[in-house]
């Protein structure tokens, strides 16, 4: 058996690092940080706990920043020059998913954009970007922002996610005013006496919240949430299997600079006004792909049998024609079987199409499957 690789470079630590170690987490290098991949009960148990109760995730490695301009319109227009989502019409207290695009319409990163609820924060947009991409994202934005819009990095904030069907009950016990929030709503509030900025969102397919909190308060908040018997800490291993079952893209795997949002099945994240008006990087390609359909598309794949098909697995037709590649794949604990996603030629992308996955040199029968593999349970 092969030993897991160990990185030699010094790793960054989140404010919760000592908490993870004290809980017996197995720590691994991830995006330059020393992060918990699992706690002693293991990934299957953590995954199932999150689907049935509430899982608590440390996602402090992700990049938190703000764009700050004179008014909403100015800041929103500046960001709309870089992303395809409608930011101008974002309401106060609303969050939206989008992508930073290259001039060729490829995805440089995906991100969450929030217009704060507080009227005093007018002109600010809060951003959450991927840990591995934050340096590149910030440089990309700073080079393209107009002089009256500045990027402000939040280097002193942690990010926690609580996810699962019991998340709302747990949160309501700490702050009753969180119960009426709906998916992608945001607001500042107090949890366990601590100032936080909340959004009703996450990346597991479950109902839940992401909680931005000052570094200095992160441990107190983590412990307050874990004090609830419905809550257990969950590592990056289960986070990955949860988001895969939910059919959600992982940057650097399912989406990257070679994929457009249309190929990736993210057309829903480009609102009507922007589709028609364009005015974002790669608009010509994206508008063409919306109209004519892209040559290849991201699909769900359900292998027959029990063997998982991992990232990089070649996809062929039953008669051996190479039609694509798996970009994420593994075992879905809730599905109780292997699940995968990948890109295939559009002519073989219909749900139910029979394909082969070349696992260790052998063709493994699979079918194109509808995503998500596990239904989303967002609070609409």
């Amino acid at each position: 058996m092969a030993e897991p690789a160990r990185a030699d470079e010094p790793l960054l630590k989140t404010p919760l690092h000592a908490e993870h170690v004290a809980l017996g987490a197995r720590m691994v290098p991830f995006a330059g940080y020393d992060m918990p991949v699992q706690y002693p009960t293991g990934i299957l148990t953590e995954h199932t706990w999150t689907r049935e109760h509430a899982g608590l995730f440390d996602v402090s490695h992700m990049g938190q920043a703000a764009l700050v301009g004179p008014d909403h319109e100015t800041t929103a227009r500046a960001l709309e020059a870089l992303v395809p989502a409608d930011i101008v019409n974002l309401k106060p207290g609303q969050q939206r998913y989008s992508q930073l695009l290259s001039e060729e319409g490829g995805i440089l990163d995906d991100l969450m954009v929030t217009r704060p609820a507080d009227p005093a924060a007018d002109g600010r947009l809060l951003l959450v970007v991927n840990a591995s991409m934050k340096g590149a994202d910030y440089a990309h934005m700073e080079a393209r922002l107009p002089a009256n819009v500045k990027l402000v990095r939040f280097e002193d904030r942690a990010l926690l996610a609580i996810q699962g069907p019991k998340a709302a009950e747990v949160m309501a016990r700490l702050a009753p005013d969180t119960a009426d929030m709906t998916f992608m709503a945001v607001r500042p509030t107090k949890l366990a006496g601590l100032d936080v900025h909340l959004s009703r969102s996450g990346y597991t397919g479950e109902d839940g919240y992401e909680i931005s909190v000052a570094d200095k308060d992160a441990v107190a908040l983590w412990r307050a949430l874990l004090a609830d018997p419905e809550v257990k800490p969950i590592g990056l291993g289960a986070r990955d299997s949860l988001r895969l079952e939910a059919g959600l893209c992982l940057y650097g795997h399912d989406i990257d600079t070679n994929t457009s949002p249309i190929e990736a099945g993210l057309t829903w994240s480009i609102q009507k006004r922007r589709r028609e008006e364009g005015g974002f990087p790669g608009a010509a390609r994206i508008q063409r792909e919306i109209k004519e359909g892209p040559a290849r598309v991201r699909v769900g794949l359900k292998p027959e049998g029990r063997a998982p098909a991992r990232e990089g697995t070649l996809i062929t037709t039953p008669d051996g024609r190479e039609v694509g590649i798996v970009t994420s794949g593994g075992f879905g604990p809730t599905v109780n079987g292997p699940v995968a996603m990948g890109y295939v030629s559009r002519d073989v992308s219909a749900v139910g199409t029979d394909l082969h996955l070349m696992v260790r040199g052998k063709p493994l029968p699979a079918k194109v499957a509808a995503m998500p593999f596990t239904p989303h349970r967002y609070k609409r």
Partner: protein
Amino acid sequence: MTTRYTKDHEYIRVEGDAGTIGISDYAQSQLGDVVFVELPSVGKSLAKGDEAAVVESVKAASEVYAPVSGEVLEVNSGLEENPGTVNEDPAGRGWFLKIRLTNPGELDGLLTEEQYQEFVKSIS
């Protein structure tokens, strides 16, 4: 009956000219939850170091190599339905395959129980 180990964390428990192969308790703990095991076909000839099986955890696939040369006599078909047995009882019900040793002298190159436990201490 004697058990020998490789530095790749396979064990082989030898009785007469037959050996039972699996992965060590340390290996299963490092892998985490096992969700699938691919086993060879009965009758297959394996040379020492050949890929004998593949064990998949939630996170990744790992190869299991033949500690010594032999012919596959039997595989643990129970792992198909219950791959988690590898985590629960790696040295017992979680075995992978049995082989008939074709070169028992190769056992001398493997670690004893004591040497293996020392080795695990040195890497963990």
